Every structure is written in C-alpha cells, then in structure tokens.
C-alpha cells in the first residue's frame, strides 16, 4: 500500500478536497474584499484605541463627529442612529453610538445591556430592523441583529436575515445563526429610496470580525454635511481578544473613495 501513494494520488486528493471545500461560487466577491478593506483600515484594537484617543487625528475626528451629530439631531434623520450618536462627546472616548457602547481608552466596551434599534419600511411595506446591543461591560459582547419582515423570499435579503451574535469572554464564544455567511453583501431599499448595503462578517474565529453597515449616498445618514459628496460608513466591529473589543466608527468617504490621511472637517 505504501508505495502506491504516489504524487499523482496525493495531487488528486488535495485538488478534490480543495474544490469540494471551496467551489468557485464560495469565494467572496471582490466587492466584499473592497468593503473589508474599508473596515480593516478603521479597525482598532485596544492598544490602538488607547493611542488614538489622545492623537490629533482623534481630536479632529471628534470635531467632525460633533458637527455631524448636531446635524443628525436637528434633522431627525435615522432616529435610531441619531439617538445613538446624540450623546457623542468630543472630549471622551465616546466615539459613536454611546447608547450602545463606547470605546474606552482601554478599548473595552462599556454601557451594558443597551439596545438601539433602527427600523425602516421599504416601498413594498416590508420592514427592516437593525438592532445592536452591547451587554457585557467586562469588555466583549456585541450583538447585531438584522431582521426583515414581509420581504418577499428570494429577493436576496431574507436569505441573509437573522441574528448575528457574538459572545466573548469571560463566558463563551458563540456564533449563532450565521446563515448569511461571511462577507455576504445584501442590499435593501427603504421607503424614501435609501439604498442600504449590508456587509456581514462573522465571528467564529478568534480574530477580529467585522460587521459593516454601509449607508450609501442618499441614505438616511446622508444629511447636509454629506451632500457635497461625502457619505458615511457606519461600521460595527468586534474584537474578541482579551480586554479589548469592538470599535464602531463613522468613516467618511468622498467622491474618490476613502480619504487617506486626515479626516475632513465637516
């Protein structure tokens, strides 16, 4: 038997299992990689967050966010998100969505057991709900639930609906219902014509996982300061490393893509 294990048979075995495990259709779409690039760029772990907290870049972004929050509050756009950002502080580490959680200099989550919900109704009467929650002040639980009701089957969205849940130490790490899969991108159009693209990550390895919610031009978030071509990427991220987790950031994109260097002042 031993001498029969030729290179040819090894090659056949490896190629067979590789194709079975990764059929062509299972490779993430390139646009997903592009989106993930955005997420990676803005991802912070705890140390980075701590460093960033005192940086000029951080302060500049703080001012930008402060302006944005004011506009959101005045405009009443996207009630869920507006409420979430309303408590933004230019001084502290309340980067965004402090109703959900805030990034401390240690990079840990705080603000336990708070849920923010954003609900939108589509032209067909369907309802999309985006719900986020953070429930572990010890530093590491984030949950994002995206659900759609009344959406016709097979429209590409229901397939990715369901719960996305990450639970981190000190208990267990339990990915649940990851039926929308890694890197899946789905779009949904709300009643006002806003087109949302959801980019899903997953959380079943110890490496940081990201869940991105991309609000495109004309989206609920695209209020006055954004009208000059900027739009916002609202990013939820989760880190599952010890004592550090989860960043969520507003990221500004201009007509030519993400601006390298400093963030613009709105």
């Amino acid at each position: 038997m031993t001498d029969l294990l030729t290179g040819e048979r090894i090659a056949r075995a490896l190629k067979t299992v590789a194709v079975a495990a990764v059929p062509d259709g299972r490779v993430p779409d390139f646009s997903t990689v592009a989106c993930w690039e955005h997420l990676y760029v803005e991802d912070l772990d705890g140390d980075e967050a701590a460093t960033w907290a005192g940086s000029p870049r951080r302060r500049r972004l703080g001012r930008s966010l402060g302006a944005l929050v004011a506009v959101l509050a005045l405009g009443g756009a996207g009630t869920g998100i507006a409420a979430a950002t309303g408590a933004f502080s230019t001084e502290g580490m309340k980067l965004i969505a402090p109703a959900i959680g805030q990034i401390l200099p240690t990079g840990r989550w705080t603000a336990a057991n708070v849920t923010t919900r954003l609900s939108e109704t589509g032209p067909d009467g369907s309802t999309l709900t985006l719900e986020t929650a953070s429930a572990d002040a010890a530093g590491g639980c984030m949950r994002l639930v995206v659900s759609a009701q009344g959406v016709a089957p097979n429209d590409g969205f229901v397939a990715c609906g369901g719960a996305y849940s990450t639970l981190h130490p000190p208990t267990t790490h339990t990915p649940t219902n990851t039926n929308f899969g890694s890197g899946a991108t789905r779009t949904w159009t709300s009643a006002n014509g806003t087109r949302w693209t959801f980019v899903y990550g997953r959380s079943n390895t110890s490496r940081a996982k990201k869940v991105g919610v991309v609000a495109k031009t004309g989206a609920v978030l695209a209020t006055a300061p954004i009208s000059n071509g900027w739009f916002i990427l609202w990013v939820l991220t989760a880190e599952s490393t010890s004592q550090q987790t989860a960043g969520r950031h507003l990221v500004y994109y201009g007509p030519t893509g993400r601006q390298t260097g400093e963030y613009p002042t709105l």
Partner: protein
Amino acid sequence: MSVGSEVLPFEGVTTGEVESAYRELGPSLMRLGWLLTSNRTDAEDVLQNVFTRYGRLESRPERPDAYLRAMIVNAVRDLYRSRSRDERFGQPVDDEPIEADPEVIEIWDAVQRLPQDQREVLVLRYHDDLSTEEIAEVLQCPVGTVRSRLSRGLARLRKEYR
C-alpha cells in the same frame, strides 16, 4: 456612489491590478488557504487579509502569483500564532464534512496530521503544482530545505496513510 471597485482605497498596486489578481487567483489562493487551515472561515480571513495587504503595496511585485502565495502561507502562520495566543477566546466553526471517495479522505486526513512546514510544501507541490524552485521562492527558503521537507513530508504521509 457605491462601495465598489470605483471607490477602492487601494494604493500603490492599482485597483485594477488588485481586482484582476483577485479574479484570476482568488479561488486558487483561497483553496491554498483552506488546505493549510482545514477551515473555510479561516481561509476567507486569510484571503481577505492578504488582498487588503496586497492593495497597500507601494509597487507591484514582479510575480504577483508567487507573492500572493507567499502572503497566504505567511498569513496562515500568523493566524496560528494569534490563535495559540487567543485560543481560549474562540474556536472556529467546523466546516461541513467533505464528501469524496474514501481514499481521498484518507489522504487528506493524513495531510492534516503533518507538521505545518511539511504540509505547506506538500500542498504547494501537489495542489499548486509548483516546482521545488518555485516553492523555495514562495517560502523564501533554500531549495534544499524544500526538498528536505518534501521528502520528510512524503515519508510521514505514507506512514500516516498506512
């Protein structure tokens, strides 16, 4: 505006080059990642990490395919290092079982039991069909080292398979 290829933030290596490389090599590189990790989720992570890094290169590598393969191998190594550090914080979800004839499965099981350095060489040799010289280029090691690992890997594989 959409988040798509027209707004990619890649620098150095142009967006078109990144996209082209992804379309051409993405599936085979993901399979390489899978063969080195035995896990589709990890393979996706590795693939995405590699291409985000690739997009940040200041200049285009002379041989993108070899360069990207090397990045995959290194990304897998990085993944294992970080996992050993953080393993208590989560384990990957198991892939669905592979359906293939018993011999294929037995060989694959044996490959998975190899030490990582031998597994890398065998996968590059027999899955990617690289020569020992090309493997040496990917792994950035002498050809002799590749031959040695290949020889030891084959011997061990045959022993495991038996």
